[in-house]
């Protein structure tokens, strides 16, 4: 069943374009050390090369410290997309595990997980993370992954729980149970593969939510710390030069919007592919 959904997605043009955009961004991030024209932290000449407009030498210009913006964007993609991908994987794993626990075990486990989801989903993530960072001081990118991933599993858990509760009463599960399969085996072998497309939708949405969060935290100086580059802190470097250096705003905004948009399109098309499967 799930295989047909994946197949349908593979032949969907918007989904392919979106996947290509994300793959391109990931490739740029992975290859950053090879394709960056300059060292992203190097300040070659803070007087003469300060805030140089885009040119052949510096295709995306330079920042107030004379650093090359293209190199910072590429290396920033490593951090921004790396943190986002790590947080997405963490939240998808946590959400799937807790959602499956709630659905399959039921009873107290369901009460605890559902109660937790209902409480936490009403809390603005950004504010809680701001309060945490303000108290404990700046965080390494690894801690950002933990905080963003640890606060992003709610939707995934909710979706997985609802889907699994639906599947639990289907004939193939009853058949497996009649053959003597344990709950663990049924979940691992049958249920989780069946809801993989839904988990992928939730993961794409989690990615679309986390990229702006990291950018926002770095933009207010609480996320990725200089001299490390991220898309958010390139914006922070440009915030004082809005009238003179448009390139410090436009390129990070474009990068963030394109990746988030691609993730949203992918989630949309995947949802449509799942829906198509259900139609008679």
């Amino acid at each position, binding site marked *: 069943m799930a295989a047909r959904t994946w197949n349908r997605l593979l032949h969907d043009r918007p989904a392919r374009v979106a996947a290509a955009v994300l793959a391109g961004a990931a490739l740029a991030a992975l290859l950053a050390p090879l394709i960056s024209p300059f060292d992203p932290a190097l300040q070659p000449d803070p007087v003469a090369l300060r805030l140089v407009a885009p040119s052949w030498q510096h295709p995306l210009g330079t920042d107030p410290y004379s650093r090359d913006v293209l190199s910072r964007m590429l290396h920033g993609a490593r951090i921004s997309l790396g943190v986002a991908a790590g947080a997405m994987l963490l939240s998808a794993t946590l959400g799937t595990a807790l959602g499956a626990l709630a659905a399959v075990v039921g009873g107290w486990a369901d009460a605890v997980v559902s109660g937790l989801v*209902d409480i936490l*989903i009403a809390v*603005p993530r*950004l504010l809680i993370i701001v309060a945490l960072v303000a108290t404990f001081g700046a965080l390494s990118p690894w801690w950002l992954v933990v905080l963003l991933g640890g606060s992003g599993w709610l939707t995934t858990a909710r979706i997985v729980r609802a889907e699994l509760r639906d599947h639990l009463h289907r004939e193939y599960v009853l058949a497996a149970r009649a053959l003597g399969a344990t709950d663990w085996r049924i979940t691992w072998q049958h249920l989780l593969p069946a809801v993989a497309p839904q988990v992928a939708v939730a993961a794409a949405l989690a990615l679309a939510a986390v990229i702006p969060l990291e950018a926002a935290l770095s933009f207010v100086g609480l996320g990725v710390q200089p001299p490390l580059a991220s898309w958010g802190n390139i914006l922070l470097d440009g915030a004082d030069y809005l009238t003179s250096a448009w390139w410090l705003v436009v390129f990070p905004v474009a990068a963030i919007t394109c990746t988030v948009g691609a993730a949203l399109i992918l989630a949309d098309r995947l949802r449509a592919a799942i829906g198509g499967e259900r139609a008679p």
Partner: protein
Amino acid sequence: MTRLILNRILQAAAVIAVVATSVFVLLQFAPGDPFAASLDGTDVPPGVRAEWRARYGFDLPPAQRFTRWAGALAHGQLGYAPSQHRVVSAVLAEAMPRTLLLIGVALAIGFALGVLLGLLQARHHGRWQDRVIGALTLGGVAMPEFLLGLLAMTWLGARWRLFPVAGLASEGDAAAWPMWERLLDHLWHLALPAGVLAISVAARVARHQRAALLGVLQEDFIRTARSKGLGEWTTLWRHALPNAIGPVLALLGLALPSLVGGAVLIEKIFGWPGMGLTLFDALLARDYPLILAATLLATIIAVVARALTDVVAELVAPRRERPV
């Protein structure tokens, strides 16, 4: 209905209790107490330090401090904000109405605009109008509020100087202007931050509204309405919309926490002196009581607004099943 309201009140109370407790725990980890900056100099006599700490209960064990703090919180007392030389509640009482105004205006305009765009898309489903609005709303959802805010600030504010770049109202002799001019001046300052937030809300609402309307348009009573000879707009407005608006409201409720987070950043970018700007000023000054109180209050606003949206969604469309 009563059950839903009770359920939502209990849920909101639980969220607030959990967040308040976490805030207290965080306060314990924060380095130094509110008096650290002014009293911990080497030339201050130890007796004076001890006296001030004892007066505000900083010498008590954590459990007693917690009950004291929770009791004060229940009375609306949130402590002293050293960076502002005022009590926290006075700072927030000034800032909160401004934030509520910003979010309220953005929600009202954004929701109306979003419903309208969704209606237009459903009316012209599959044609160029649908595609153009669809691309715009996708862009509006994909671009986080604070980035749209930065772009608006760069061009409309800083470069073309069409809008003011900070504050509630013009400085200088503006206080002497006639009433209506002062009102216009306020609106002019509100226009960019509220407009940016409203665009974000509208994009989200339009996407949900379109999907909900297209779902409802498949149903039999719509075919009945059309075969009665009703016009397409009348069918949409009178029959489809009332049945499609409930789920949209519920989904808006789900998006509210992130809207409050976005508003905080928008205030920072546009220098709108509400709770967000207060929060960031407090961050710079390392004013922990104020940071945590502002976080707590913003969370409470998000939670209460979400509970209200759920109840309104139920009132508007009681029959539909909703994903909550």
